[in-house]
């Protein structure tokens, strides 16, 4: 899906996802967080991981709202074998201004917004198990993250 072909070719099939949310105002951030939280809880993630997922979603939707004004959040459950390893995949997609220097943004401590710590992207990366970002100036940004369910 995330081939390096052309930015516009990124093809997200809506039907593959359990939750699809449009982010366009500040309230949507809280909605996305709530939905992700209950989705993770329903799939028996631990409280710490539920909080991490909710926080990551909150950061992703905040980024969409703050920089792109509008975009989408996709959430789905991934199962390698039924009943075995479960993970939650989250995609944040927007056609906003894009990020000029992706490495610097992901490294943390860098922001273009005045009222921001610039910790969002680096924080998301540390909160989740896998992190992928693709961004092109003038075209938009896609972030794909995944959190595996830990087994006790």
């Amino acid at each position, binding site marked *: 899906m995330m081939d390096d072909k052309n930015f516009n070719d990124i093809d997200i099939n809506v039907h593959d996802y359990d939750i699809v949310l449009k982010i366009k105002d500040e309230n949507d951030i809280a909605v996305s967080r709530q939905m992700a*939280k209950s989705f993770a809880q329903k799939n028996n993630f631990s409280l710490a991981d539920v909080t991490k997922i909710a926080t990551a979603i909150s950061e992703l939707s905040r980024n969409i709202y703050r920089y792109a004004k509008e975009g989408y959040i996709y959430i789905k459950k991934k199962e390698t074998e039924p009943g075995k390893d479960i993970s939650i995949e989250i995609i944040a997609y927007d056609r906003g201004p894009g990020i000029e220097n992706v490495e610097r943004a992901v490294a943390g401590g860098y922001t273009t917004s005045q009222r921001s*710590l610039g910790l969002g992207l680096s*924080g998301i990366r540390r909160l989740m198990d896998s992190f992928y970002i693709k961004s092109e100036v003038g075209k938009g940004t896609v972030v794909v993250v995944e959190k595996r369910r830990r087994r006790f």
Partner: protein
Amino acid sequence: MKDFVISRLGELVEELAKDDEQKKAWEDFLIDFAEVCGKTDFKEELKAPVSNLLQHISEKELSDGIGLLYTKIDNFPAVDVYKALVEVLGKKNDENQVRIAELHDTLAELSTPIIQLWQDVLLAPVIGTLDSQRAQNMAEKLLESIADTRAKVVIVDVTGVSMIDTIVGEFLIEMFSAVKLLGSDVILTGIKPEIAHTLVKLGIDFNMVIIKRDLESALKYSIRKFAKDAEIKQPNPKRGDADEN
């Protein structure tokens, strides 16, 4: 049509309703329907029966019912009934929107209480999620209270917060800095274990404030601190700074 509906009332109700409670609702609706049938402002007259019916059955059930009536009754004015239904739902939706807006305002007022716990000690419990509007309200209210009460210690309790992301973290850090500029100390309490972990991962550091496990230890700490300040003040009453601290 009126006579037809009345004459076959029992039969129609039987097919439409899923249980006894619905039977009564559908019966009332069909009687009302027969009554207003053929009137010029039929659609307007139908709104009240439709909204009564909706209190007992779901929108889907009503929609299915209209479909059924359409097949059972010749010349059933399905379009007008649907129009009435859509308008009733639209009105309901508007009312809900107004109610949500009202609740939002109420919440904003309720959710930022500033409590004077003790002489010189203020408590600001943070509850629920903070959006930028609520955060702004809370910071303003807290800073005003500090100026009014000349509090020396402000306890910010986040027990009621289920998640702290960078935006809430930023807001708290800003608020703490502002409180310190007014000359008060900040004690942060009530960080839950899962939040502690998330904060470390995010790289948010509250090292500018004193952190205590819970309200109890924060209060103990403040009382001890006041006692110490008083001790220091006692031996030198002639210094002339008795009105300060």
